[in-house]
């Protein structure tokens, strides 16, 4: 088991290296002259040369990359153009908030997806199964911001049930109940698409397992239906973990729309605001940190996978 986790960790290193190169490339493909945009049109040739020198822009790209990587690894993610402050603390705060939202969404997505998937698998006919299937199909096709808007219209604006934006009530005590109230709508919004995908995958995985011989073999040994189902659902866990791992990426990407709609102060909102201000260091840092979180979460999922399924840790 430890060996398996170790191998996974080793495999993550080249991936992270690749991630850093991709991010670096997005910095380099920015059209226009960064020096000119920093100095403005009035910069003298001497000032330009000095700034170019200071930013290391006259170095060859590989050197620039190593310098940039060094800064990134030591936690220096650059300076925000719009806010004139260090990017790192800003991004890390936002990441925490995004992880809170994503975790809540993941719980909702898995519970909902497993419930709908199991229901539609075990009752293949009937109105509930059809409804479940339709729900799964629509939720994977619907744009997240429109789900969010609908929820705002009906549950928040219309019925006044939940707050529509932010993370805490500005006049509140900042306690857990306040957070929970603010969390529920964005979490449901972010969860719906992954829930639909999980439902569809889980459905076919339940059907797969139920058609496996061991369900019949277990019944033939005198096990009760309930015990047989425990075996069956245990056997759906590996594929559920695989899907969940894939959906983490969707969640971390999809939250940008949700955060934009609900003004949730996470990475997504930060990136969204930085788009309008063309604050590229923040955008890049946000994407980098999200990718990092994604890689780490996938490692966790892999480890869980190894824990559940003896076949893959061999």
């Amino acid at each position, binding site marked *: 088991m430890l060996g398996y986790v170790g191998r996974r960790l080793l495999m993550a290193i080249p991936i992270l290296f690749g991630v850093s190169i991709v991010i670096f490339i997005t910095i380099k493909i920015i059209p226009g002259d960064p020096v000119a945009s920093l100095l403005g049109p009035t910069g003298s040739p001497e000032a330009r040369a000095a700034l170019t020198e200071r930013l290391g822009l006259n170095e060859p790209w590989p050197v620039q990359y190593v310098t940039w990587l060094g800064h990134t690894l030591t936690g220096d993610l650059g300076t925000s153009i719009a806010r004139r402050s260090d990017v790192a603390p800003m991004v890390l705060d936002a990441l925490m908030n995004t992880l809170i939202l994503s975790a809540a969404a993941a719980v909702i997505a898995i519970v909902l997806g497993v419930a709908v998937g199991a229901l539609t698998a075990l009752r293949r006919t009937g109105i509930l199964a059809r409804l479940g299937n339709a729900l799964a199909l629509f939720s994977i096709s619907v744009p997240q911001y429109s789900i969010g808007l609908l929820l705002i219209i009906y549950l928040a604006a219309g019925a006044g049930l939940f707050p529509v934006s932010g993370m805490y009530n500005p006049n509140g005590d900042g306690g857990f109940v306040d957070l929970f109230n603010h969390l529920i709508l964005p979490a449901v919004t972010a969860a719906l698409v992954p829930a639909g995908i999980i439902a569809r995958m889980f459905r076919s995985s339940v059907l797969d397992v139920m058609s496996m011989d*061991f369900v*019949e*073999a277990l019944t033939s040994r*005198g096990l009760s239906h309930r015990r047989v189902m425990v075996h069956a659902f245990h056997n759906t866990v590996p594929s559920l973990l695989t899907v969940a791992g894939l959906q983490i990426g969707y969640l971390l990407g999809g939250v940008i729309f949700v955060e934009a709609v609900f003004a949730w102060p996470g990475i997504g909102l930060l990136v969204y605001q930085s788009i309008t201000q063309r604050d590229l260091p923040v955008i890049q840092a946000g994407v980098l940190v999200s990718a990092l979180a994604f890689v780490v979460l996938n490692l966790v999922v892999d480890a869980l996978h190894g824990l559940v399924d*003896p076949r893959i840790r061999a």
Partner: protein
Amino acid sequence: MTTSLEKDPAATDTTVAPLQVTDLTTTFVSRHRSVDVVRGVSFTLRRGETMMLLGESGSGKSVTARSIMQLYGSAAKIGGSVTMNGRELLGLPAPELRSLRGGQVALIPQDPTGALDPLRRIGSQLVEVLGVHGVATTKQAARRRAEELLAMVGIPDPKRVADSYPHQLSGGMRQRAVIAIAVSCDPQVLIADEPTTALDVTVQAQILELIVELQQRSGTAVLMVTHDVGVARDFGGRIGVMYAGRLVEEGPAAQVLGEPRHPYTSGLLAALPTPGVARGALRSIVGSPPPVGAFPAGCAFAPRCPQARPSCHEQDPPLVTVAPDRAAACPVANPGPAQERAA
């Protein structure tokens, strides 16, 4: 490898036979249609005896075996009667059926890989069954019994195997473990559904030997399903040849295979290569078996039968006694006056 028939009065008294199947019918029902797969199968399995169900795929032999254990749930309607020691099994309430399954009747399925939960250790799967049937009361006792059972089925290293996952074992070892689970609660009837089909040829003989050995040790009655005439010949006991959901011939294996009465049995045997016979002499039965759900009227074999009479296409001949201890469902097999075979 012929099994010995015990001369015990209970063995001949059919009312207390470990397994008696009378006019068994199995119909699969779905929303759109229902399909008859087993159509009136009757046989008796006595203590310590072996019964072979021989037939091609689609003949209903596996379904017969599973219908006895009622493994299809609501997907199939099962008619007729199945008794164990005189007690009717069809229509038993669920808890009694559960204690019966794995307790008095056990199944060895075809593919050992599919029969084991891939995520559980062999030992824990054995212990679970022992616990469900109340064979072992403490964890330690169950574990000890599990290792004994693994040793009994010829696993050289029972402790290690008990701690292994199915994927860590070879196919033959897996099937031994499945057999250990099947015999864990001393069943009176062991149903083996093509127990060697999924295994390497070299392992097949070992597994068959193991089943015979276990049977001789405990006097278990074995119902073996196979499509392999060779296996049927080696195993001996009684044999029932199935075609299109019906038993077409029944009797002691040596006699049925030595001197078949039903044209289908003859055809099956003629299609076998025999040493010393030139290859050209190999004959196969013309045509193919009717698909399940589309059995023809009259005798299902008539369209392929070289000896079919006009009446064969209209009336399905009943299984009648054609010689002492032998029955066949064919007018050709029985020139004398047809005599309904007593079940």
